[in-house]
């Protein structure tokens, strides 16, 4: 990160870096350290006094059955969204890569959902699958399927997975397409000369060459499901019915909002931070230099 040629003096650079430093320290390091500090404290009911309790908050968190439930919900939710959004995006990307005449138009028509806010994506899908007035939800009930995402936990989860996937396919599509276009045509032609058909070529040449992209997208998608889907969950189900769509992030929000135990909420935040840092570290360790754009 060194430039051989540079300016001398250090008052100017310090002035230049101060705005970012100040904002980072005030709105990032301060709150993050507060969360860590708070996770080791217990406040009395009025928030007047607090005492150091060691890891008690953490053990309390891991003793809650609801915490494990939220963990399982998060795992199910991320697995389903990751699988479907990657699979659908890869299917679209391989088709769009076939140098079709309308290729560019298709790209434009497939990527715009990226711009839709998660909460709005959720509202759109809720409207479509509304049990009594939805264009698709009402027929489900008329057919005798007992469809009601407001009352049934499984239905609610299906709705969340659909809307979260819908929103994220565009992102994965874009990166898969870039990945596919970076694969040299000569490799594929060589495969064809050796007699491999399109399907065989895809699974033995294209898919392995895409694996860095796939892995990178897998990590990004998991981070997306963990955090950005908050808007979808809050707008569509509010964590319900009966807590069946409460993810780890949603639980931190809901526990803190209801004026609950700050120490417990902070301990949950810290656990989440550790998870994100681990995911990011994995991404940097294994992906950074291997992905080709």
């Amino acid at each position, binding site marked *: *990160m060194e430039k051989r*040629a540079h300016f001398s003096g*250090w008052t100017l*650079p*310090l002035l*230049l*870096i101060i*705005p*970012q*430093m100040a*904002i*980072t*320290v*005030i*709105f*990032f*390091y301060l*709150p993050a350290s507060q*969360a860590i500090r708070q996770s080791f404290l217990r406040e009395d009911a009025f928030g007047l006094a607090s005492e150091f309790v060691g890891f008690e908050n953490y053990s309390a968190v891991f003793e809650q059955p609801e915490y494990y439930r939220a963990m399982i919900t998060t795992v199910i939710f991320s697995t389903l969204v990751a699988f479907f959004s990657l699979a*659908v995006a890869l299917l*679209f990307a391989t*088709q769009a890569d*076939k140098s*079709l005449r309308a290729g560019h138009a*298709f790209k434009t*028509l*497939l*990527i715009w*959902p*990226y*711009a*839709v*806010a*998660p*909460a*709005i994506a959720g*509202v*759109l899908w*809720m*409207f*479509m699958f509304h049990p009594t*007035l939805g264009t698709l939800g*009402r027929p489900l009930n008329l057919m005798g399927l007992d469809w009601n995402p407001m009352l049934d936990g499984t239905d609610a989860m299906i709705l969340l997975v659909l809307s979260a996937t819908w929103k994220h*396919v565009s*992102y994965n599509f*874009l990166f898969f397409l*870039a990945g596919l276009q970076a694969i040299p045509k000569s490799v594929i032609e060589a495969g*064809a000369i050796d007699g491999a058909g399109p399907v065989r070529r895809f699974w033995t040449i294209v898919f392995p060459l895409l694996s860095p992209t796939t892995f990178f997208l897998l990590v990004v998608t998991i*981070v997306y499901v963990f*955090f950005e889907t*908050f808007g979808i969950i*809050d*707008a569509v189900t509010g964590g319900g019915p009966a807590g069946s769509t409460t993810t780890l992030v949603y639980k*931190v929000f809901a526990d803190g909002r209801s004026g609950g135990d700050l120490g417990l*909420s902070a301990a949950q*935040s810290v656990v*989440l931070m550790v998870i*994100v840092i681990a995911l*990011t570290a994995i991404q940097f360790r294994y992906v*950074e230099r291997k992905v080709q754009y």
Partner: protein
Amino acid sequence: MVENRPFRDFMAYLTLVLGVVLVAFPVYLAIMASTFDTATIINGNMPLFPGDQALENYSRALFYGGKTAREPVMGMMVNSMIVALGIAFGKILISILSAYAVVYFRFPFRRTAFWVIFITLMLPVEVRIYPTYKIVADLGLLDTYSGLVLPLIASATGTLLFRQFFMTIPEELLEASKIDGAGAFRFFKDTLLPLSMTTIAALFVIQFIYGWNQYLWPLLITTKSSMQTIVIGIKKMITTTDALTEWNIAMTTAVLAMVPPVLVVIFMQRLFVKGLVETEK
């Protein structure tokens, strides 16, 4: 591809057309819903072709708002616009300056400063919401635009992007400028800034969408309905008891909320793709 098979091309078109329809359908329904009155939608037999209430719905949503919340969507859109532009410009400003300092100067703790900024890449605002809320409240920034914007520009993406770009600029440019007698300010303004325009524009597109679509943070720190952003406004319109939900107004608002960021993606597609790919590196 290698083979020239009309059938395979046909299948590709078919898949993509199906994909486009699948992707567009929920939005199509929202647009349709914004052209009917509440009763038609509540009955559950909303036609798939536009009705005649569009003008009525859009003018009511924009200037009056929903029955229960009664906050004009126009005001919410102005708030969203201010927040989105504030985040986009704020992030560009602070990160281009700090990247300039890190790349073109040598000063004590330069490496430390870089890492202090770099680490923020890892933690999204969602995991530190309540402590951040408390700090913003202590600073008296609840229900203000600064409170909505500042905590969200504390991130490293922009700095990394500019740093990466500056590193590709040939050293000779700075040497030549120095020989010509340009100081740090002159070099930044006349050489670096013009060269960075595409990068700035790409970052702007990504950050504008990010800012416009914020949800959790505005939800927490806005209590006055006059400070609401449009994404929050929609949620408030549909959480009332089911029978009272004015779906036509809610869907009209949803359409209005999607227009600015979607237009940005469609008309600045090249910059959008560049920004997306490069901020993730």
